[in-house]
Every structure is written in C-alpha cells, then in structure tokens.
C-alpha cells in the first residue's frame, strides 16, 4: 500500500531505464542523501563524525568496490586490504613528491596504481576459481605487507616506517575539521555510488554477472572471460584504492602497513557477505554492521550493566563485544544467507502488499 508502483506509467525508454524506476525509491534515496548532507551535520557531534560516520563512509566505499568483484563478478578476493594499501601509499607518494598536487588528484592516482596492481594480481583468476582464487589473491596481501614494511622509498624514508599527511585542502576548501572531512567523504562516496550503480546496470555489469553465474555459458554466448574478469578486478581495485587513500589521509592521518593487514581484507569480505553479495545497497548495510555494531555494543553494554547494577570490567566488555558480535554474524547468516540487503527487499515487498498479504 505504501510502496507500490501503481499508476506510475513509463512513456519513454529514458523513464523506463532510469536507476530507480519507482518514484518512492527515487524520492527515498534523494531524501537519505539530503539527510546525510544537511541534517547529519546538525545532529551528529564530533565523536559521531570522527569515530563512527567517517570510518563508516570510507569502509562503505571499500565494501562497494569489493562487492563489484566478489558480489557481481563472483571472484572471491582476499587482497582488498592490499589494494587499499596500494591506494594509500601511491596517494601518499604522490602527495609528498609532487609539490602542490590537489588532494583529489592524489586520491585518483592512488586509485590508478591500485588498479594496475589489482589487474596484475587478477591474472590468476583466468585460470583458477573460487577458493583457489582467494588463496591466490592472498599473495597480493602478503606481497604488499612486505613491500610497504621493508621498502623505505614508499614511506618517504621515514625512520619508523610510518607515513603521515596534514593540511589537506580540496577545491580551495580545507579538509581539516570533522565536518569538512565528513562532507568530503560523503561526496566521494555519492559520486562513486552513482558510478558503480550505473556500471552494474550496464553492459559490463551484465557481463560480470554472466561470468559469475556460469562462466562457460557466458563464454559461449560471446562474453570474453578475460576482459570481463580483469575489468572487474580493475574497477573494484580502483574503488578500493581510493577508499584506502581516504582511510589513510582522512581517517588515520598517520598510518603504518598494519592498518591494511589481512584482517582488513577479511573484514571487507565479511561486509560484502553479510550485507548482500551483488547489491550496492548491501555494501552499506554490511559496512554499517561491521563498523558500527561493535562500537555500539561496547558503548551500550556498560550502560545496561549499570541499570542492573553490574560493573562491567574493560576486558570483560571487549570479550562480550566479540562474543555478541560473532553470535549476531552467525544468526544473520542463518536467518538470511543472502545478506541484509535481502532482508531489506523482503521488507519492501511486505510494504507493497500490506495490509493484504495474500
């Protein structure tokens, strides 16, 4: 009743092919974006911005990139942390070695080098599939960990092996305060979100999905597996690389290779699996689940404890956080193996037929 397309007639191909053919969706997404741009800055305090929203936005972008590769093209990758690292260090080198380079350009250069590395480590995907491929992409992870730890040139010969940046500006605006950083990350995310949504709707996205669903059949109908797989690796690692550069530049400010360890790769993969494979929306759900939930548990538990008169110690709190978080992951996977995005679409369907479900 609340959500149905009755009476919305498409009279042109353009209207039929738009991203959100249903008016409610269109307005809903516009409202969410407007809310994020205008209302959130008024509502959220500094802690929310710096510790929760900015990492959420950046990791959403990374999850979006991984989803293109894993969710749309079906190539399981454990090298995402490495591609983030390449993006971060390429952008950093660009930033310190080329005087006066704009921030956006540095980020895009980071994405470009991540693309190159991504294509290179995507080559095994032409021969191996599934779990074997994920092991092959682990090589990227270990190689990049090693390179950024041991090759001093990458960190601008810093004695301690850390890289750091400061005084960021973009388009003449400072990117220093939490609000500025938030708006900057949000803008980047919106641009990449629209681009990614359009890519997966287009011919190339359909090729990826065909390869994912059955690569032999896809090849038979004339889709070149090499082109499709490597283009998925390229697009995915570009987005992941930009996200890595943002993570380093905007969120951490000063970082070491441990920020992009294999844990990060697993985290991104879990975001995609939990959020929903092959769904742009799912990337956001997954990132929210993985980034926000543990912190929320960590903050809420002591408060609940104080209501019932129990003082939760620091160690017990962290352990409880991990137990509850792990249990929730298992629970969600059992209840909805297709991820949170599927729950969302089930909810939409319910709204559509309400109040007459039959």
């Amino acid at each position, binding site marked *: 009743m609340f959500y149905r397309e009755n009476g919305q007639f498409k009279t042109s191909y353009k209207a039929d092919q738009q991203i959100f053919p249903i008016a409610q969706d269109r307005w809903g997404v516009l409202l969410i974006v407007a809310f994020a741009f205008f209302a959130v800055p008024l509502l959220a305090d500094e802690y*929310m911005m710096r510790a929760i929203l900015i990492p959420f936005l950046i990791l959403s972008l990374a999850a979006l990139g991984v989803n293109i590769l894993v969710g749309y093209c079906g190539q399981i990758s454990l090298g995402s942390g490495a591609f983030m690292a390449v993006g971060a260090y390429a952008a950093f080198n660009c930033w310190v070695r080329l005087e006066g380079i704009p921030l956006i350009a540095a980020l895009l250069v980071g994405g470009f080098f991540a693309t190159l590395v991504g294509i290179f480590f995507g080559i095994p995907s032409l021969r191996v599939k599934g779990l074997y491929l994920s092991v092959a992409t682990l090589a990227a992870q270990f190689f990049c960990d090693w390179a950024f730890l041991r090759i001093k040139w990458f960190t601008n010969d810093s*004695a301690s092996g*850390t890289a750091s940046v400061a005084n960021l500006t973009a388009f003449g605006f400072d990117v220093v305060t939490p609000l500025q950083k938030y708006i900057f990350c949000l803008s980047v995310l919106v641009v990449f979100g629209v681009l990614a949504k359009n890519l997966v709707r287009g011919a190339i996205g359909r090729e990826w999905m065909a390869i994912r669903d059955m690569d032999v059949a896809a090849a038979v109908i004339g889709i070149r597996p090499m082109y499709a797989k490597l283009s998925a690796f390229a697009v995915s690692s570009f987005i992941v690389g930009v996200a890595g550069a943002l993570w380093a530049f905007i969120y951490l*400010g*000063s*970082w070491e290779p441990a920020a992009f360890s294999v844990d990060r790769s697993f985290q991104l993969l879990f975001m995609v699996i939990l959020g929903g494979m092959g769904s742009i929306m799912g990337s956001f759900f997954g990132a929210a689940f993985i980034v926000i939930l543990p*912190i929320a548990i960590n903050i809420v538990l002591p408060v609940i404890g104080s209501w019932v008169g129990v003082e939760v*110690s*620091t160690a017990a709190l962290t352990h409880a956080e991990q137990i509850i978080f792990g249990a929730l992951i298992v629970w969600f996977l059992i209840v909805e193996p297709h991820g949170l995005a599927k729950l969302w679409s089930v909810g939409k369907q319910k709204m559509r037929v309400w109040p007459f479900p039959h």
Partner: protein
Amino acid sequence: MKLRQLVLAASVVAAAASSALVSTAAYAQAKEQFFPVLPYRTGAYAPNGVPWANGYADYLKLINARDGGINGVKITFEECDTAYATDRGVECYERLKGKAQGGIFQPLSTGITFALTEKAPTDKNPLITGGYGRSESSDGGVFKWNFPLMGTYWSGADIIMQHLTKKENGNLKGKKIALVYHDSPYGKEPIPLLQERAKMQGYDLQLLPVTAPGVEQKATWLQVRQSRPDYVLLWGWGVMNSAALKEAVATGYPREKMYGVWWSAAEPDVKDVGEAAKGYSGLVATGPGGKVLEDIKKHVHDKKQGTGPADEVGTTLYNRGMVSAALAVEGVRAAQDRFGKGKVMNGDQIRWGLENLNMDDKALKKLGLDTVMKPLSTSCLDHEGSRTARVHTWDGKKWNYASDWIEADTTIIKPLVKQFADKYAAEKKLTRRTPADCQS
C-alpha cells in the same frame, strides 16, 4: 517469524539508544579531573598490557584514597580497550576526549601515538608516551603536545650500547650486533641511533625484523645462527619476547648475550621460559618498590579496590604503569600550582604543567616514589625530562639489578633529535615555537 521481528525491532531500538547515549555522555563535571585511559586488556599484547593498566588504575585510585585527589580535586577515569589496534585506539581517543576539557592520553602503543600526534594539537590534549612513541618528540620546540617522559627509544638504545661498550672495555670495533625487532614503528625507532653509534664506534649492525605479532621467528633466528652476532638486542613486545627467548634456546644462542629494551624485559616475557631464560638481560626504568607500593597495598588492595591481583603489585610493568600515572598526576599538580590549586585543569594548562615538571628527590620522597624513579625535570624544549635506566638480569626466578643507573649520552642523541624534528616540521610546514610561546 515473531522472534525475527522482535530481534530486528530490538536492534533498531538499541541503535537509536546508543546514538542518544553517545551524545548525552559528553558533559563536563565540576571539581573532578578526568583521566582518559587507553589500555589493552585483550588481544595479542594483553599479557604485557594488563599489568601496566592495573598499575595505572591503582595509582589513580591511590591518589583519591590517600590524598583525597589532587589538592582536593577528585580523579575520575575511564578505560577504553584498544587491543593495540590503531583504528580502535583512534576511536577510543575520540570517545574519551569529549568527556573533559582536555585530558592526558597515554596509549602505550607507538602506532597509536603516531596517529594521535596528528590529532592532539588541534584537540589540545597532551600525550605522555613514557618510554615509547616518537623519539624526536622529545624536542618540545616542534612537538608541543608530546611528552616522551623518562626516556625515548633512542635513549634506551644508547643506554644498552653504553653498557655493552663498558663490558667490552670500551671497544666495540668489529663486533657484530644484531637488532631483532618488532616490524612496526615501535621496533624501527632505535635504528637511527644504533646506526649513528655504529658509525662512531665501528661495530657492524645487523637488522633482523620480525613480523608482528612475532609468534613465528624461525627465519630470523636462522639468520642469527648463521651470522653469530656478538650481541643480540631484542626490541619485542608481548608474545614476541618469550618466542624470541625460546628460539634462542632452540638455536643455542647464549641468553647472556641478549639485551632487551624496557618493554622486553619484564616478568611476563620470561615467566614461560623460566630457567631457560637465565642470563637474559634487559633495561628497566623503574626501581624496586618503596613506600608507594605499601600505600597502594594499604589504601587500595586491602580495601578490595585493587584493579588486578595483589601479587602483581611491584612487578616491572606494574611499576611502569604506576609511574606513568604518577607523571600524569604530577603534570596536573604542576598546572594547578600555577593556574589555581583545587581547580579542574584544561588541556592547555596541563600541557604547561607537564612542561614545567620538577620532580626532585624531595618531591619524590613526599610522594613515596623516591625508590621507584629517578628525579625528573622538564622544560619547554626538553619534553623527555630524564633519560636513565638500569640493566637487570633474569636468574631463572626473578630479575636482579646488574648495573647502576646509566644516563643516555645526549651529545649523540641531541643532534639526531634536532635533525628528525626539523624534518617533521618541514613535512608538516610547522615553525619552531618562539620563546614567548614557551611561556604560555
């Protein structure tokens, strides 16, 4: 179906409630000085992080119980577990910093220190990194908000090298010295100083990184076995230390020739190795317990307020945590002396206090700390305060002091500090502080 809806509804409510809690949690309290604490009681480094955190918390409790606070200002503190992870540490910092008008942060992690160094100046929160962090941050002219009190890694490396030089009768020429280090900013810190000294003294420095967390060290110790260095310096943390000692036993490298930094020579590191670690030496920056430990037992543990087990009181890392807390408390006290006794200090005022610490023998005696630490005094330009440590050796059951207090040689460290601090300032486009700024 019902259950699913219920849980979904509950999670939505929880999310909403948590956001409401977060925003209401930020309030300033009157007459209470808030101390944010960033310990790690979980994760790979917890065995070493826990005693430190217990010492830290116990000392803060002691000040409240014994002295009634700092000149009457009660201390409140809250812990946020970082698990030694940089991103979680940053989140904890953001969470706790909103609870006061500036507080002293001590992350006990060089990685988190690097990240917070970029954030502290804008937020006006002093960072004490006692015995860790960036070595060049002892230059207060560039690093206004960092306080690597009681010695940096350069000081630590220098002290070990002085001890070795003395052992070799003043001549290290042609000796082979291997640095087995945690491959992270922490482990890499001493390298510039060791290289500088290698140039001066003519020894051969071999760098052997160990991938974090350091459980797997077979390849490293194979190299040690091949090159047979005269000494091995151990720059490990957590499980890496005991793993290194076990590997040394396995490869037959004499433990008497191994020297650890102050983070590699505490009880948790050798406890599991026991007798086999006999002869292993390392630095210690704190002395044996004295009056302050009796006070903690009397005022905190005997009243069942102790943070950890009572037998932990007086161990190396516990003492280190306790002294770290004492430094923070004294910083606030020094600030109160200037800006008003019995008032709550803000970040800027505490920074001034830390810059003007003067903990001489008399002051230490009054606090009961005279046997635990050496006198320390800071200035606007010297944020390190004191740079002394002594060597202690494990006899299979306990640590015994093997040297007197050794002071690091500033003639070697000072030029390095200047060079690296200037490089940092140039990268960040900072200018050195003026004498007028030092007064503020």
